[in-house]
């Protein structure tokens, strides 16, 4: 597992109390023996289209051999960032480094990256073999070498004996494999993947996710993956960056970013979060005390507090799966936070139950309880007390009220 923490987000809502606890981590152990150098580096990249700023001062490092995802809703700048690395868009400001070399002004055909396009963009007039051989032919490899490499790559993507097929005779999943082979056969420094799963149905998508991870492990090439599907990004990546309005809102390993969201956007976009508005009252070494609207008091570990320096207003967050129901007659343990409410919706989902609990302050809290049956399930209308461990509580800086997070995605 690659856990890296340098080059964390440069967003203005970056927490002050967060950074200290996260820096020193062990370097990656693994297959790639080369010195840990950044394969891709965006330095202060900004892209403006007329009035619109698509990418806003992006700073990002991707290490060699990593599976890195850019995740965000449509229009967040993730695809534009990828296209700038591919050479299809020119940044308005900033530099892009590839293996330490400045490629900002190079045309696409002089960059050592290859792209798997969202629509695959296979050459309709060429058969599978010629599609895959296209890049090798442009670089004037000899015939025997081209034949050898293309066959080997079609083997890897599980399409042997498909050389003579026309691309129009292939299914969506097969076209995607050809697109992948066509890019990978050139052994680029970095493979760029622009929402490659979006045209596949759900079942095939899950299958291809596993396939793609296997192929990446096999070829050992850095993958830069763009997606709007947070589950996909978390499943596949070593590290990911959540983008919104052209900026990186959170970056790190999927577990890091999920467990320690740094902004309200990340908390809501990556998985689900319950967020309660509150004000910081006091800070101690072991816990920060926050007064939540409605009178309750909650404690948060200091290293999990993200906030704006200028304000003590925060939102207290907890993930739905971390919450439990307090059994009747018991007291709230000192290690837990608690809030009371009434169950309004209770849904059985097989693996568990999903509850929506309405609190006195009007904020609904979602709870996922696993179906392990040692607890009687509360029913709709029951008054309950929700508790969760202090260590699973975090805070984020609240967004200005005018900003709405649009989680839905139709690309």
């Amino acid at each position, binding site marked *: 597992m690659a856990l890296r923490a340098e080059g964390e987000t440069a967003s203005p809502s970056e927490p002050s109390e967060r950074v200290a606890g996260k820096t020193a981590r062990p370097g990656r152990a693994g297959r790639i023996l080369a010195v840990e150098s950044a394969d891709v580096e965006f330095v202060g990249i900004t892209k403006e289209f007329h009035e619109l700023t698509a990418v806003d001062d992006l700073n990002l490092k991707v290490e060699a051999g990593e599976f890195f995802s850019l995740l965000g809703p449509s229009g967040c700048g993730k695809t534009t960032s990828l296209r700038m690395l*591919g*050479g*299809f868009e020119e940044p308005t400001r900033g530099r892009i480094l590839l293996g330490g070399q400045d490629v900002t002004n190079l*045309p*696409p*055909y002089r960059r050592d*990256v*290859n*792209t798997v*396009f969202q*629509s695959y*963009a*296979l*050459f*309709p*007039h060429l058969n599978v073999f010629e599609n895959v051989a*296209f*890049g090798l032919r*442009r*670089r004037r490899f000899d015939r025997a070498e081209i034949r050898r490499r293309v066959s080997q790559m079609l083997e890897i993507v599980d399409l042997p004996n498909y050389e003579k097929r026309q691309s129009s005779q292939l299914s969506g999943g097969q076209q995607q494999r050809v697109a992948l082979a*066509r*890019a990978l056969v*050139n052994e680029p420094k970095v493979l760029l993947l622009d929402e490659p799963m979006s045209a596949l149905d759900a079942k095939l998508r899950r299958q291809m996710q596993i396939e793609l991870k296997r192929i990446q492990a096999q070829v050992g090439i850095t993958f830069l993956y763009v997606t709007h599907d947070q589950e996909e990004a978390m499943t596949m990546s070593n590290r990911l960056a959540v983008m919104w309005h052209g900026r990186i809102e959170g970056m790190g390993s999927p577990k890091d970013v999920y467990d320690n969201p740094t902004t309200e956007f990340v908390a809501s976009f990556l998985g689900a979060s319950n967020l309660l508005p509150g004000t910081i009252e006091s800070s101690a070494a072991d816990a920060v005390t926050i007064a939540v609207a409605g009178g309750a008091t909650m404690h948060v570990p200091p290293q999990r507090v993200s906030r704006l320096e200028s304000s003590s207003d925060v939102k207290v967050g907890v993930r739905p799966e971390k919450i439990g129901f307090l059994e009747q007659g018991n007291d709230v343990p000192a290690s837990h936070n608690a809030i009371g409410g009434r169950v309004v919706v209770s849904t059985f989902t097989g693996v568990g139950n999903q509850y929506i609990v309405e609190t006195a302050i009007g904020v609904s809290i979602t709870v996922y309880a696993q179906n392990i049956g040692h607890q009687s399930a509360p029913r709709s209308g029951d008054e309950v007390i929700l508790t969760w461990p202090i260590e699973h509580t975090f805070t984020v800086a609240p967004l200005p009220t005018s900003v709405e997070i649009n989680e839905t995605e139709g690309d």
Partner: protein
Amino acid sequence: MVPLAFMLSLSLKTCNPATGACVMTWHWGEFPSEISLYHQEFITSLYFAAVSTVVDLVVSFPIAYWIAFYGGRRKNFFLLMLLVPFFVSFVIRTIVWEFVLANNGVVLGTLKHLHLLPSGFHVLGTGYAVMAGLAYNYLPFTALPLYVALERIDRRVLEAAYDLYATRRAGFLRVILPLTVPGIFAAFLLTFIPMFGDYVNQEILGGTSNTMIGTVIQNQFLVNFDFAGGASLSAILLVIALVGIYAYARLLGSRTIEQYL
């Protein structure tokens, strides 16, 4: 289809030039005799049509390419500009072309006045005038299929080529040009076949020499009243056109024809 069937049956009849009455005689001999009489006109037509078609392809490819790739939001305006001259009647256009090419007209007159051309130089009445007229009159029939073919090329496929180390030159030769081939073939058929049977350009611009087969057919029907002869010449033209379309269908598939017509 009815006039066509009538024409085909006419080619096998024997007619009385004085009365115009025709009787079915299954006289196949009309075909070889017409060919031996008029093979020179067939060759002239073939030559004029071929040269003019090539000229049209060479001239309209850059125009169609530019409109398809760089026309932006004004594509339709540029296409309209290409078509506007052709809203005028075919014959009128050709007569105006006659003025343009006249011995002391706008072009030659000016050049002669500047002593860039000898005063005896002329274009009208030569094969060049006929080819110029043909090329001018059929330009949209080449430009439009080419435009459609170029416009249909997925820009992302072109991006994929650049991504795979293709320079702009390689992108053009390896992706754009191969994907335009059906359009080039359609343009060729739509231009070459009507040019082959055209007589207006030759009548107006070619003077008395350089007779094309279209003129012969017209004369057979309207001057010589040799209906069977004219009909059999037309039948030969039809066969040539069908052979061309058959070749197209075999090479590129019949479905692509529908996309360009």
